């Protein structure tokens, strides 16, 4: 436009002031909390996990297909971890979809952009207020899931030691710390989903697909993670920390994949939120017909995240010893032997036998995949392992067989195949009656990031 030389009249030229960020944030929170949908979801987050854990912890069968599900009868801390496992797959992406995915789209639906822009007078502050409000609501929801799950477990089962994924016992205090840390680690991928939700909401406007972007992304990532992809790709995905928190329950903790997953997730959160910001502040708010989509969806939304994925895969591949699937015989041998030793001690205690140490047992495992024909690497349900150990008080050795179902994310379920007295049956006879046999089925997790010892 042409230059305007007339200076503002002193009495009338009160400069346009953007609304204070605090006021804008409070307004966004008020809008969020005024909707029945948000209120119901918040209520569900704070109540449903407790109810679920309380009910499930009182009955059999237990949700043994979920990590720590088989320990729900034994300790209250397992319930919160079952909820975390469920939330990692479904609840967290859906919550971020509902909150962050709708943060901007709701103004398009209501036709309130002009009103809001005139009231706040700064697209930057609108963005900051909306992003912060979405973050606050999501955090309150996640906190509700965690607290509710813990409360339900502790009230219905009790504050007992928690067996880790390698069978070692965590004292109640250690369990509390580790459960809290696991939930905290899950916040990083939740932030990544929230950032993607904000981006989808800005890009797609009133288009319903905008609301679903985090959920669709999570579903896609789960499908990819179920495939036998290279470990460098697996660990460079934004949702990997929702799986690798399990490594906290190993001794020593498998922190490498977890830290990597958190860094990648935070990078996704920053890049997606930054892309959303860049697109939002360039928006023409006089265009009521704006419904997003179009070419900028690709250039402003998809390309930055695709580039980030490529960079993270390259960095992980170059900077870490990760290779192949990350699953091999040596890792399974060591992992299963350790878990067996820890759980053998647990079984010994249940049977009121003299206590033994892992060193006295000298446990080892020999795993094989698919007989002599196949290579002993990768995920699959055709792993067979023979565990041997020194029988306490004798010079003889014992052996037990396990069938392993190893999934591509490094988790495995070892199903005992006998002998019956050791791991072939789901209960053991104790002086006080039948008790769950800790060696019958056990969960484990291998560190995909460590180099193969084979």
């Amino acid at each position: 436009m042409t230059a305007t030389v007339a200076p503002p009249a002193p009495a009338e030229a009160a400069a346009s002031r953007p609304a204070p960020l605090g006021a804008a944030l409070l307004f966004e929170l008020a809008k969020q909390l005024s909707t029945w949908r948000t209120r119901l979801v918040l209520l569900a987050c704070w109540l449903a996990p407790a109810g679920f854990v309380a009910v499930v912890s009182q009955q059999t069968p237990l949700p043994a297909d979920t990590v720590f599900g088989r320990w729900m009868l034994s300790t209250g801390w397992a319930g919160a971890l079952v909820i975390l496992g469920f939330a990692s797959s479904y609840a967290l992406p859906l919550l971020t979809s509902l909150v962050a995915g709708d943060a901007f789209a709701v103004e398009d639906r209501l036709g309130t952009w002009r009103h809001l822009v005139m009231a706040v007078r700064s697209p930057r502050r609108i963005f900051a207020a909306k992003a912060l409000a979405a973050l606050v609501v999501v955090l309150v929801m996640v906190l509700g899931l965690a607290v509710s799950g813990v409360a339900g477990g502790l009230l219905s089962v009790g504050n007992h030691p928690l067996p880790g994924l390698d069978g070692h016992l965590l004292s109640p205090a250690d369990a509390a710390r580790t459960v809290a840390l696991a939930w905290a680690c899950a916040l990083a991928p939740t932030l990544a989903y929230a950032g993607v939700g904000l981006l989808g909401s800005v890009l797609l406007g009133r288009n319903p697909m905008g609301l679903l972007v985090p959920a669709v992304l999570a579903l896609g990532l789960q499908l990819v993670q179920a495939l036998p992809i290279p470990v460098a790709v697996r660990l460079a995905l934004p949702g990997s920390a929702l799986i690798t928190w399990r490594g906290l329950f190993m001794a020593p903790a498998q922190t490498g994949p977890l830290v990597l997953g958190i860094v990648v997730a935070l990078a996704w959160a920053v890049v997606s939120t930054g892309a959303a910001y860049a697109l939002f502040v360039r928006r023409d708010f006089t265009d009521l017909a704006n419904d997003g989509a179009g070419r900028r969806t690709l250039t402003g939304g998809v390309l930055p995240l695709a580039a980030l994925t490529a960079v993270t895969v390259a960095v992980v591949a170059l900077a870490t010893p990760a290779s192949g699937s990350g699953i091999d015989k040596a890792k399974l041998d060591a992992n299963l032997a350790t878990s067996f030793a820890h759980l053998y001690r647990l079984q010994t205690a249940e049977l009121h036998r003299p206590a033994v140490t892992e060193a006295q047992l000298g446990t080892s495992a020999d795993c094989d995949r698919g007989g002599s024909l196949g290579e002993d690497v990768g995920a699959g349900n055709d792993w067979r392992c023979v565990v041997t150990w020194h029988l306490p008080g004798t010079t003889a050795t014992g052996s037990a067989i396990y069938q392993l179902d190893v999934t591509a994310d490094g988790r495995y379920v070892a199903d005992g195949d006998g002998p019956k007295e050791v791991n072939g049956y789901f209960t053991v006879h104790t002086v006080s009656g039948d008790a769950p046999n800790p060696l019958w089925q056990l969960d484990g997790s291998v560190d995909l990031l460590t180099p193969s010892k084979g």
Partner: protein
Amino acid sequence: MATPAVRARGITKTFGEVIALNEVDLDIPSGQVHGLVGPNGAGKTTLLGLLLGLSAVDSGTLEVLGSPVGRALTVPDGVAGFVDGPALYPALTARQNLEALASLRGHRTSGARRATEALAEVGLEDVADDRLRGFSLGMRQRLGLAAALLTEPRLLVLDEPANGLDPAGKHHVHRVLTRLAAGGTAVVLSSHRMDDLAALCSEVTLLAGGRVVFTGPLAKLAAESGDLDYRVTTADAAAARAVAASVDDLHVVEADGRSAVDALVVRGGTDAMDRLVVALVHAGVALRELAPVVPPLEAAFLALTLPDDAPVDAPDPKDQEAAR
């Protein structure tokens, strides 16, 4: 001389290939209700959006309340209003909407008082704590006006504020706008309702095709209408027709079948109409009603905005009656 509330010189605004405003000049003084009229697509909403700071001009200069406006969202404080109808939040109550708005505009401590006063001013105090999702269009219009009043504006920009209002609501809104103008606020009012403009505005600006085709006092706009069609209802239609035919510069328009049987439609200027009335009285024909078929403002609007060869339909008398 006092600084005008709005001073525009040669402002142009385009959207892609579409020229929404083309070299528009405009002066709107304070303390006046200024009407903005024009056919659909004339550029009214674009102009209102510029005044509210929602977008910026591509070229030309625009000063609002004495401040040059070069970028979007840089209009000075003291400007309020809405375009395309007020848009507030249906999940919040009327009071919550207004208090939040007051807080955003920096009136955190006085927000509750301002909201209460604004609601009372537009007659919504009884529904102040109801959620908006149950509000009628008219109630939303009034709440939009209340939202604009919160910040004690010196320039109030309203787009079709009478939409959906019942007669009482319209009266309420007119009273508020008149009071504001009397207090020194410049009110810019866009409307298709000529009766609203006639009742409220001192001056009007008529836009067509992104250009100003008229700006000035209402009376001057009415004069632009030229010869009008008048409906003449008498006790004796046949005699009246004969009298009308004898009046110079007056033409009897053939009935279109929609007029009452005792009515006659004639076309002419005000002088010719004066002579017709005198002639009817001399001829002993009782005159029951004499009214323009199309109101002068509307006729002027059509004369200035329609192509010369476009037919002008007289409104159905039943519609006119309903509108009244």
